């Protein structure tokens, strides 16, 4: 019971990070593909405006996942970080490059500087979700045994499942970002950007859907147990919800109902995360370590859950206020004071 609650807490954090943090990475993807400095300027400005006030808060979800994991499931944490050291380290470096470049971009004085920082930002925005996704894929594929670097450092995260999950993380992030940015552009009264992001949302949605199906097929031959989990019972329900929400998002985008699409897009992505977790029950690190066996002692778990509940009670109102202000455009992104 306690162990499962802690696992759910991780899942909540992971879902928040995949949706909110993922959208920030996706925004970086659209920055990367926006074209030449001149042509891409409006898209890049919109990305900056939408991300600047919220990316740090969104990023903390990753820290949250890490700390709950190492407190509640220390043995799993040590095994994961030692076997998957390469993808995790690359992702961490990518986070430094991306955050640093983004924070400093506003101060760039010349086009060349802005370009160099922009390139670092955009490139890292693709690397980070890919490598984090590949790490998750390795866990799902049962490549992480218990022990200090007991798994294969390279082969563990370069299997088909890992690669597909990595690509899926990039694609879903890009899709959610396009949906969010489309809605933001509408509020900002920028019809040409609304069109641009609508097209991107539709395109990336199709790609993400195709990748999700490809992923399912890859899992079928690669990790049969996981496939069974995803195609029966609660796992199947999650997959169905994800598929339905994904299709709904495409329909809503088509009909330009951008605000509602925010929620369906988030649901589609969240359901994939939930589906993965449900499908590999009762394991934390398949095929051996169960959630129960990985869990910390009861007094730690109780303290963790109580603290988390108290923390959420403060966090959620604060986060709501931030998003309200950000979405309503009341947080200035211009570097200069207004006249």
């Amino acid at each position, binding site marked *: 019971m306690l162990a499962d609650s802690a696992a759910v807490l991780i899942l909540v954090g992971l879902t928040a990070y995949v949706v909110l943090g993922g959208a920030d990475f996706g925004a970086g993807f659209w920055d990367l593909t926006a074209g030449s400095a001149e042509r891409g300027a409006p898209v890049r400005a919109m990305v900056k405006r939408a991300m*600047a*006030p*919220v990316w*740090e*808060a969104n*990023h*903390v979800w990753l*820290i949250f996942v*890490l*700390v*709950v994991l*190492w*407190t*509640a499931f*220390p*043995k799993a*944490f*040590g*095994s*994961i*970080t*030692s076997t998957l*050291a390469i993808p995790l*380290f690359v992702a*961490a*470096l990518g*986070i*430094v490059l*991306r*955050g*640093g470049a983004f*924070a*400093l971009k506003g*101060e760039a004085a010349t086009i060349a500087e802005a370009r160099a*920082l922009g390139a670092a930002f955009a490139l890292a925005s693709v690397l980070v979700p890919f490598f984090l996704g590949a790490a998750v894929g390795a866990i799902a594929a049962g490549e992480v045994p*218990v022990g*200090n*670097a*007991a798994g294969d*450092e390279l082969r563990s995260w370069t299997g088909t499942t890992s690669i597909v999950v990595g690509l899926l993380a990039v694609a879903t992030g890009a899709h959610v970002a396009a949906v969010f940015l489309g809605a933001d552009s509408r509020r900002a009264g920028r019809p040409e950007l609304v069109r641009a992001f609508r097209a991107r949302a539709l395109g990336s949605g199709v790609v993400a859907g195709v990748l999700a199906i490809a992923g399912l097929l890859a899992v079928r031959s690669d990790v049969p147990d996981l496939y069974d989990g995803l195609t029966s019972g609660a796992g199947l329900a999650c997959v169905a919800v994800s598929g339905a929400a994904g299709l709904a998002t495409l329909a809503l985008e088509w009909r330009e109902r951008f605000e509602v699409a925010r929620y369906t897009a988030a649901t589609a992505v969240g359901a994939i995360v939930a589906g993965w977790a449900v499908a590999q029950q009762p394991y934390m690190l398949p095929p051996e370590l169960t959630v129960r066996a990985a869990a*910390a*002692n009861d*007094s*730690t778990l109780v*303290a*963790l859950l109580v*603290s988390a509940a108290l*923390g959420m009670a*403060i*966090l959620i109102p*604060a*986060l709501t*206020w931030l998003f309200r*202000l*950000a979405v309503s455009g*009341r*947080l*200035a992104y211009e570097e200069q*004071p*207004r006249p």
Partner: protein
Amino acid sequence: MIDGVLGGPVDQDYLLQARQMQAMSFAVHIPLVCFGIAFPAMVLYLEGLWLRTGDPLYKALAKRWSKAMLILFAVGVVTGTILSFEMGLLWPEFMATFGDVFGLAFLIEGFSFFMEAIFIAIYVYGWDRLAPKVHFAAGVPMVVAGITGSLMVISVNGWMNHPSGFAIRNDEVVDVRPLEALFNSNLWHELVHMYLAGFIVASFLVAGVYAHGWLRGRRSRQHRVALVVALSVAALATPAQLLVGDWAARTVAERQPLKLAAFEGLQETTKGAPFSLPGGIEIPDLLSLLAFHDPDATVQGLETVPADDRPPTGIVKLSFRLMVGIGTALAALGAWFLWVWWRRRRLPSSPWFHRALIAAGPLALVALIAGWVTTEVGRQPWVVYEVMRTEQAVTGASGIPVGFAALALVYAGLVAVVFVMLRRLGRQPFEVEA
């Protein structure tokens, strides 16, 4: 002593590089954190002055500082993320074995990072968009989170130096009492000492920037106000730091006698132990006096334990001297300012004062890092004092040197770019709204 739940010690040829990588990552993060601790309070103080007096200069200065604060916060966030990953990437056995004992601290910390990120964003991006009172109110949680943000990490470090809240039976960690681990007895002196250090480092660095301008003839009212605010903080914090440092030394003497011996490089147990200064001068009984407030007290020597259990003395001794020496010098500088301010109600006019201020910022940074080297290297060879050795904690993964080199490159670039951008921010014209 304990072996660890992941299967005990592994072969790792690059333990030293892992330690150095950890040290480098801290050396980049901790200075940034000083600004996370001190800047919110300083900026909010200026805004409060503006609200009370209506003088737009205060607002302009607060706004300018808050921009620098945002940049430094963002870099603090990403370097802190590296540290979080490194806990697992470098020390998986340590985390796997003790994560559930001290992990709670990091969870609480996580919430405080959330609050800081949220309210810094609202504060900095909300200038002129929110009603002035609401804006000021949004700054309050930012200041609180700046304080609590360091509370819990330090609790973990305190715990590593004085582990409590668990028992070991049959090579297993049992009977975990997370709250006891959280509020370990090393927490309080480390917290207050680090907290003051944050204010000292941030305020002297800011003062140094304006002192540099002062020497070049930039002496407008904006410069005076900035200097007075920064110097007041510095002058209050430094003398207090000497007292807290004394408290820290006495705690170390009581709980980590070998660390104390390493401060002096004291080999044999000595009654009335001396303290040596650079240049071969030795002041009799001073170490005993510092550590126990008694010139005749006995200090345990390094030779009382096997060579394997002794911390490296050279670097600890040097770091401790650097910290204490710089701390004393900074306190003198603060006193100079206070004296002149008290007698004449103005800043010291001597160019030497301003030259000294320029040096004070970087020196405070050196004291900060030296202090951490004292604490961390002085704890070696243990990662958890007298419970787990650093070599037991380390990862079995290969490639540490490659990771170390890559991170060093990235950090060198990051530090350089941040430096350039902050300089540029400083050169922007200073606009006071009419």
